[in-house]
């Protein structure tokens, strides 16, 4: 009886594995392979030439630099937010906690429109800043702002559970040994949090590379000035140039893949160091 149920579980496992792999294959791998083959099918030289075309290259640079800017800010504010949520009690905490995920629920073009209305050149704040020569909307800060909004939950949500698990004893031990608060954070807590921060940042970064809906509203979309890669890709598709679109998409895909792989390596390294 016992052996029978065991083999049942095993059989179920094989079935489950097959089901999961087919699901991932159909849902994720197949479309990505299709894009890659379609792009590379044109020949590597052509893909390369499409990527090096000035407005394509510019859009990629703008996308990457904006995503990096977003990632740095998000890492800092995300950890701070997680810290406050885990280590402090204040009225309305459950409400704030549920608000964190809200950016995921909002359609991204609504996000864009909201940012234009709040910070655009016609808004009070926008006018105030414009006099001082600062532009947010229809410039790079607007792009970063939109990216920050749509990726906000990633870092907070990956750091929060790790911080909750973290034993307060270590901190107390460090404190009794005479370490100052910031030193404790930097030397004791941060290394523990690092893998989860990197996870959050990498997810946010990948998400930011492909973000279209909010950015197309706030960026201004002027080629070689404020046009990001996803908007460039959209334009190439709209003007019947799928090849150019695929080439630039491929760069975004490969970049995301590398980042996520790097993340896996870092996490492994983190675990090994942790034990």
């Amino acid at each position, binding site marked *: 009886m016992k052996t029978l149920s065991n083999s049942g579980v095993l059989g179920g496992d094989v079935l489950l594995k097959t089901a999961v792999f087919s699901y991932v294959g159909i849902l994720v791998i197949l479309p990505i392979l299709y894009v890659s083959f379609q792009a590379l099918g044109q020949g590597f030289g052509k893909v390369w030439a499409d990527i090096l075309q*000035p*407005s394509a290259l510019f859009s990629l640079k703008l996308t990457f630099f904006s995503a990096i800017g977003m990632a740095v800010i998000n890492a800092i504010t995300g950890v701070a937010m997680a810290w406050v949520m885990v280590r402090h009690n204040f009225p309305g905490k459950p409400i704030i906690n549920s608000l964190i995920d809200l950016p995921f629920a909002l359609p991204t073009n609504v996000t864009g429109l909201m940012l234009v209305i709040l910070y655009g050149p016609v808004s009070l704040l926008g006018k105030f800043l414009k006099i001082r020569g600062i532009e947010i909307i229809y410039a790079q800060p607007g792009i970063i702002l939109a990216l920050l909004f749509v990726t906000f939950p990633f870092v907070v949500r990956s750091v929060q559970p790790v911080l909750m698990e973290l034993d307060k004893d270590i901190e107390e031990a460090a404190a009794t040994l005479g370490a100052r608060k910031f030193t404790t954070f930097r030397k004791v807590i941060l290394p523990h949090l690092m893998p989860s921060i990197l996870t959050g940042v990498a997810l946010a970064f990948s998400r930011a590379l492909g973000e279209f809906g909010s950015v197309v509203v706030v960026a201004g979309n002027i080629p*070689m*000035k404020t*046009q990001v890669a996803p908007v460039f890709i959209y334009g*190439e598709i709209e*003007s019947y140039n799928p090849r150019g679109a695929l080439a630039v998409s491929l760069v975004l895909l490969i970049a995301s893949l590398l980042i996520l792989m790097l993340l896996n390596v870092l996490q492994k390294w983190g675990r090994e160091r942790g034990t």
Partner: protein
Amino acid sequence: MKARFINSLFRTVLVVALTLFIVNVAFSQKERTLILGAYTVPKEAYEKEVIPAFQVYWKQKTGEVVKFEESYVASGAQARAIIGGLEADVAALSLEGDLQKVVEAGLITHDWKSGPNKGMVTRSVVAIGYRPGNPKNIWDWDDLTKPGIEVLYPNPKTSGGAMWDVNAIYGAGLMISEMKTGKPDPAYAENLLMAVQKNVKVMDKSGRESVSTFERGIGDALVTYENEILLRQMEGKDLPFVVPKATILIENPTAIVDKYVDKHGTREVAEAFVEFCFNEQSQRAFAKYGFRPVVPKIAEEFKDKYPVPEMLFDINYLGGWGEVEKTIYGADGVWTRIVERIATGK
């Protein structure tokens, strides 16, 4: 017992099937469905006037009820949808280039330009919208090149219709230089387009979004179709505009899609519908919603609403769509070059 049950079940199924069959035949004789795949701008004219009038006309003529399934999206997206399998019987698009893609996909096999007015059902011109009271003194293309003026028009890469705007400015440059020197000067035209492009603040995805951005208070001038502005004015918006002296004549094509009408068996009614769009009643309806009529008699009726600009040119002045896609928007085209020149400051 069992046999009787099966027998009665069998009879019930037979009766139901027969009823369904009769109902189906009865309805298919009386009702036809026509799928219209159009771009967004003429939506009101089709929906409120042309289609209801055609339905009445077809009912009187044949006794059949024609139902319409209407789809309105941006012209390029509509062309791609039709190519991708949206089985539109009739395609009404904003520019010839988009319809040409449907032809190239093998879906339109007849010579659609052989119809009345070469298949072009409506017209318009590219105009410049400005703020009430015209505080920045915007009357012509030159005024858009002045320092500090913020201009809006959609990106011609993301909105096929926006190519009309860029064509208008570039063509106006050629036209103006031709008036001055007797010969169109591409360098003059390129500089004019570049000077305007330098002042462009936002390039939205589509013409309609560009108007919305302008209405949100952004920009001093808006380059768009005259009919788009007239439609907004009909909705009660305070959006004054000027038609520049030199501008392009916009022509919007309509054609039946052979592959789909043959599949649906709707060729006859689809052809009748396209023809109906050219009659006086429909042309008046289009004129009411901001389009310039193509039928001379109706154009004459509306000549006060739609004065003809001094230096009006059409796409052929620029060499036709095939040429424009290469010389203006191609990898070495004027537009591509201007964008790079502005970015590098050369």
